[in-house]
């Protein structure tokens, strides 16, 4: 089971040879969202052509080492046209250090799922800093306030930076105020920006989801060797026979089984896959990691790339736990869906 376990072996160094596996692993942990990882893959390949990245566990860094979360916020679609470079992430981190007066010992991924997982590794390489084997979400989530670290460490100061060096420091607000300001600033940054936030000592950052980099690597290597992953829940392959996309961004996918054509799987999704049920029985729900692999291309599928007739393999992985052993504090209600209750999953 690919969840937060302390026995995932420590990865110590990431090299160019690991990029392909990281890419697949981050895509899986994107749970159908997190943006197209190809935007960051090329950049990381280029960056790691001249250097490696040290991967450090919390234990190795020590309790008093300072860490901040890095990533990108905004439109992943725009990112495919306005490609990321190294400058904006370096600027964001250095501006954060300048604003706080703190020198970071390492950076950590804001979000391991999707493009942000690769961008965090790239930022670490560009900064010549280790990357902490952890992340702020354990998978991909659409909003900053969904980070597992939220509430235990203040997000501020939040630094946004773009490729030409423009920076914005957000300070003096908390909670949803941060997301609100960031959202309003993004259009001026061309719809996406590098971000540095949630800084604290390793001890303070205890709620980070541990082992995220190692997990991504492990999943990615399995994808490369097998073309798919063993699912924590029942296996299913099927064909898309119905796809509904509502104007409010919610979608419903219907698949008919290959092994049992009478079997029906329904997947609700928005930015990510949220709920999987077969014949009225829940197989997985957010924060579980729900992944669809295209049987033809052997690639994970984003929600925006779904179409009728696709032949897909369903992978459901149990949600990782936070560093303090708690489940991720995100559920269906965070996406506007009625929660199922404890008796729902069989």
């Amino acid at each position, binding site marked *: 089971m690919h969840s937060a376990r302390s026995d995932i072996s420590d990865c110590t160094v990431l090299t160019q040879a690991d990029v392909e596996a990281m890419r697949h692993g981050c895509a899986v942990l994107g749970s159908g969202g997190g943006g197209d990882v190809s935007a960051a893959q090329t950049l990381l390949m280029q960056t790691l052509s001249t250097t490696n990245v040290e991967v450090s566990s919390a234990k190795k860094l020590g309790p008093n080492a300072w860490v901040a979360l890095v990533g990108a916020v905004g439109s992943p679609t725009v990112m495919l046209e306005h490609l990321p470079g190294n400058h904006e992430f370096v600027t964001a981190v250095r501006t954060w250090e300048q604003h706080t007066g703190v020198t970071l010992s390492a950076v950590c991924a804001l979000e391991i799922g999707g493009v942000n997982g690769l961008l965090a590794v790239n930022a670490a390489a560009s900064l010549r800093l280790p990357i902490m084997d952890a992340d702020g979400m354990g998978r991909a989530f659409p909003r900053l306030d969904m980070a597992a670290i939220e509430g235990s460490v203040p997000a501020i100061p939040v630094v946004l930076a773009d490729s030409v060096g423009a920076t914005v420091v957000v300070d003096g607000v908390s909670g949803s105020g941060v997301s609100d300001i960031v959202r309003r600033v993004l259009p001026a940054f061309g719809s996406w920006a590098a971000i540095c936030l949630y800084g604290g000592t390793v001890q303070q950052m205890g709620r980070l989801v541990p082992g995220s980099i190692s997990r991504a690597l492990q999943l990615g290597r399995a994808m490369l060797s097998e073309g798919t992953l063993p699912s924590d829940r029942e296996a299913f392959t099927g064909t898309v*026979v*119905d796809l*509904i996309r*509502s104007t409010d961004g*919610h979608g*419903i996918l*219907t698949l*008919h089984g290959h092994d049992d054509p*009478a079997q*029906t*799987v*329904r997947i*609700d999704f928005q930015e990510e896959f949220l*709920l999987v*049920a077969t*014949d*009225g*029985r*829940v197989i997985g729900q957010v924060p579980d990691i729900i992944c669809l692999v295209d049987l033809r291309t052997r690639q994970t599928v984003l929600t925006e790339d779904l179409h009728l007739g696709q032949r897909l393999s369903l992978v459901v992985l149990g949600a990782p736990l936070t560093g303090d052993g708690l489940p991720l504090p995100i559920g*269906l*209600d965070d996406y*506007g*869906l*009625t*929660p*199922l*209750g404890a*008796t*729902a999953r069989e």
Partner: protein
Amino acid sequence: MGSPRWEQLLVNDSFSPVRLADILVLPLLDGAQLIGPPEARDRIVNDVVCVSPSLALTSAIRPHSLVLLLVDDTQMRWSHMVELLIRHAASQGAAALMIPSTEEGLPKSTTRVAERLGLPLIRFQKTVPGFAAALGLNAVVHAPERRETRVLLEITDAIIRTDSLEDLLAEVATQLGGRVLLADSTRVRVGDAEVGFDYNKLIVHTRTGIVQDLDEQDWALVPAFTAGEHAWLMAQRPLAGARWALLAQRALSLVRGEAVAWLTNARAQSERAARVRSLVLEELSFSGTVSTELVSAATDLGWFFGGWHLGFHVGVVSGPAIELWELEGMAERLSRNGVDVFGQVARGDGWTFWVDYLTPPTPATVRTSTAAVREAVAELRSNVAVRGLVIGVGSPQANADGLAQTLREARDAAKLGATEVDGIAVRAVHDLGSSELLLGWYGSRLFGDAAVQLLGPILGNPDAKTTLETYLENGCSVASTARILSLHRNTVRQRLDSIEQTLDVSLNSPDTRLALQLALRANHSDAVTTQGHERP
């Protein structure tokens, strides 16, 4: 041959369980859609359970429950709960799941899951607030007789307050939510004429549950028999359940008395009108005038003696007699085509009627009216293909005296037209020409007897009579006769020789030929006169 579905479902008239079909006909479920196999309508419902999305999977559901998912617009997205609830409800033996309709429609996964787990879905319009719907459904499920009693009470009130049978049946139809009409084996008497079934298939099942499939539609029937007339009160609602059928029968039984009274009154009025018509025509025929009393009675029937009249007479030359209902139907058709018929009278030698005009009709008007009559009469022939019919048309005449004259002319024209019948013959008095000379002879009893005497030996031989008649009517040409009758010329000659011998006449004599021809024509005219009726 009753409706097997309804009769199998009826356990006992009074204690028939409520089924989904009985729920679906309720007004509060107008526009609701059942998603499931047709037999789902027969599922028993004995309880109503309301669930909200947040508690849907933990709600207690009893077998045969109708599960109603209550949502309001302020709640979070709930469509993902439906399939989970389908599984939960199906596992508890629920009868069906009711969910509100949404603009998005149902995903295929939901309908597939419902089908796979065997649970019917009902999508209902959110026009009625959820709890109000739940209360209404609960009342119907647990005390269906209350609502049914209310319906019957409304109909009882309608019997008192409505003025006509039409209004009463319309009210019954409203209360039952279906179609209601009074019909006999030939037509709809009261109600929507477009019934949509074959009258000839109206076979009554004699069990107490008088329910009948007609062209795959279920009708509830109650007899409304009077002396000499069999009519039926009928109610129909598509896909209705057995309880509706019972309710419909009770409702129709309530109004049966009104229907029988209406039928009796209609028959009495029809007979009275026929008597008055006959009396008026008798007076017109013999005296040329009509008494004041009959004028008054005729005026009550809508007749008008002022203005101009054009007389028609329809006679049957061969085939069965025309029924009264056919004649009434013909009058309706003529009226639809702009020809208003007055004074329709059955006489011994056919049916006489006339058309009224306020101003003298032009020849074009007469031709138009004649063409409309011919078209309407052609439909009579289409009812029975072997009929031979003749239409006599009089000349336009004014006032009561003129009415008598035009009617006489029409009858005379019909008599002459009867001698040359093939299908439908139309003869107008103005184009009778020299035939008019013969009118007196055709009507003479003396001439008729002489004709029978002359033709006597061959009257019982259809081949001989037809051969002789065809020969004389076609210029005494053997070749033409053979061609018309599809015989060999030698056969025709043999027959003519035989006729000469039998009648002891010579066909070489012009006088003989003329006499025989006149006798044969008189014989035809006599056939029109005596077709199923006493000769006057």
